[in-house]
């Protein structure tokens, strides 16, 4: 296990290095320098040079990169151009808000995705299977920002049941019913695609496992159906887990658009504001942190897999 873990770590480090290069390049991709978009038109060349020096944009790119990397590694993501506050200070509350939403959406999609997938696999060729498979096809190709708008149109505008946007106002009673009411629609919209993909892969994997010979043997041995079901689930878990990990991480990316629709003050909302104001350091910091989460998520899934299926370790 230790050897396996070390191998995964060795694999992850160069990827993180590559991620940092891509994120660094975000600030330098646009033509001109990162300040030109926000500088007033009448700024004198001296002032421009002064500000460029202050941000370190006058140095050669490799030096800028290693300076930036050193700062990032010590926990400094730079300063937002628009608000002049540290990027980390803007990011932290946003990350917590996104995490709240993501946990709700992940829970929802894992539960309903697995449930629907298993149900479809066990009712093969019946109406339930057809319905679930069709819903999964729709769910995979549906734009989730549009689902978000449809949910608002139905539940907030037409029925007036749930709030259309924002978060519950902060109070000192902790996490209460009000917080849940604000969270239902965004979490539903966000969980749509992962649910569909998880349901589809659970269905396929469970059907595959059920066809294997050991299941026949278990039936022949006269094992109870419930016990056989447990065996099937246990064998279907590892491949499904890999897909789930990927989906959970994709969900973080998807939250950009959904949060924008619901004005949910998370990382996605922050990112779309950073784009609108061309606040490149903020954009860079947000994407770096989200990509880091994504890599870590996949790393943890890789580590968890041999715990479920010891065969993977030996490959």
């Amino acid at each position, binding site marked *: 296990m230790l050897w396996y873990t070390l191998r995964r770590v060795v694999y992850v480090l160069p990827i993180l290095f590559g991620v940092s290069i891509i994120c660094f390049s975000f600030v330098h991709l646009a033509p001109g320098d990162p300040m030109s978009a926000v500088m007033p038109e009448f700024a004198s060349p001296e002032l421009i040079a002064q500000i460029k020096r202050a941000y370190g944009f006058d140095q050669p790119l490799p030096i800028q990169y290693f300076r930036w990397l050193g700062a990032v590694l010590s926990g400094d993501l730079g300063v937002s151009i628009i608000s002049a506050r540290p990027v980390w200070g803007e990011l932290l509350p946003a990350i917590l808000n996104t995490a709240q939403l993501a946990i709700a959406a992940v829970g929802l999609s894992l539960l309903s995705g697995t449930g629907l997938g298993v149900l479809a696999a066990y009712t093969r060729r019946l109406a339930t299977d057809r319905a679930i498979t069709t819903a999964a096809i729709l769910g995979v190709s549906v734009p989730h920002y549009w689902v978000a708008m449809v949910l608002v149109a139905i539940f907030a505008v037409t029925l007036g049941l749930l709030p259309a946007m924002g978060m519950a106002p902060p109070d000192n009673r902790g996490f209460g019913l009000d917080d849940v009411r604000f969270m239902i629609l965004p979490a539903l919209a966000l969980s749509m695609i992962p649910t569909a993909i998880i349901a589809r892969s659970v269905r396929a994997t469970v059907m595959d496992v059920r066809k294997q010979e050991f299941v026949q043997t278990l039936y022949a041995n006269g094992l109870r159906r419930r016990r056989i079901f447990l065996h099937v689930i246990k064998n279907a878990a590892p491949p499904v887990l890999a897909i789930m990990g990927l989906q959970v991480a994709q969900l973080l990316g998807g939250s950009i658009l959904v949060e*924008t629709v619901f004005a949910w003050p998370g990382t996605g909302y922050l990112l779309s504001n950073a784009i609108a104001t061309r606040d490149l350091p903020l954009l860079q910091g947000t994407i770096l942190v989200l990509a880091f989460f994504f890599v870590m998520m996949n790393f943890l899934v890789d580590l968890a897999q041999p715990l479920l299926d010891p065969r993977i370790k030996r490959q």
Partner: protein
Amino acid sequence: MNGSAANSSQPQIEIIRRPVRIQLTYWQSVRRRLRRDPISMVCAGILVLIIAAAIFAPWVAPADPYKTSMLRRLQPIGTSGHLLGTDELGRDMLSRLIYGGRVSLLMGILPITIATLVGSSVGIVAGFLGGKTNMVIMRIIDVFFAFPSVLLAVGLAGALGAGPVNCLISLALVFTPPITRVAESATTQIRNQDFVEAARATGASAPSIIIGHVMTNVSSLILTYASGLISVAIVLSSGLSFLGLGIAPPTADWGLMLNTLRQSIFIAPVNAVLPGVMILITSVCFNLLSDGLRTAMDVKP
């Protein structure tokens, strides 16, 4: 008697008329299988309609998509003169949806075309050369997989700045790595086969092996995979214009229409979600058509 003897001495030529079995070429049989798949045919029909309507928009659209009217804003579906109602500036929704297909479909298909060309050539070369070159190229590709696709697209487009060209570049960049990976793994499998070895033994040059043996064998796999990405690209590119990163108003685009109509969702919820229906229909059709193509081409993923 004599005559019959003469007859029997002559060999009787018997013509057996068997029903002629035409040997179908690969593509002919693919086309035949695809034609017999009702779901694929319906999807293809819908897509042809939408694409044709977008191309011939000036002749198909019932009204001018840019003509605003302050008096007739956000009219509901079925208003006389406006079959699908009007938008927040009083422009005819149906006409704008028809015109919107031009940008939206192009932004879905063009990035995939570019990504397929770039990704498959890089992947085939990497897979064919193998060794260190392969490793370096594929490790670079791995880095792009460290980003969720939406995040990478939004990040790139956001950093490059709004505009259809930047949108196109970032989408092509997002979809190149997965296609490269598919092309590389397919090529690696092919290059170790006996017939490639035989071609090499007869003295065939690397380019002629790639064109004659590798490409012919991996192209169907890459093609079906790329066709499946079109539906993702349409949703993603509309998402970028939804964030205001795509084409600038007043040009009609489904994602941008969703964005501008979002403010009117409390007044006219049905109008506001209408452009998304178009995105959904095209995306589902491309998805199902690609599934049908995969079955018809008998590609194992």
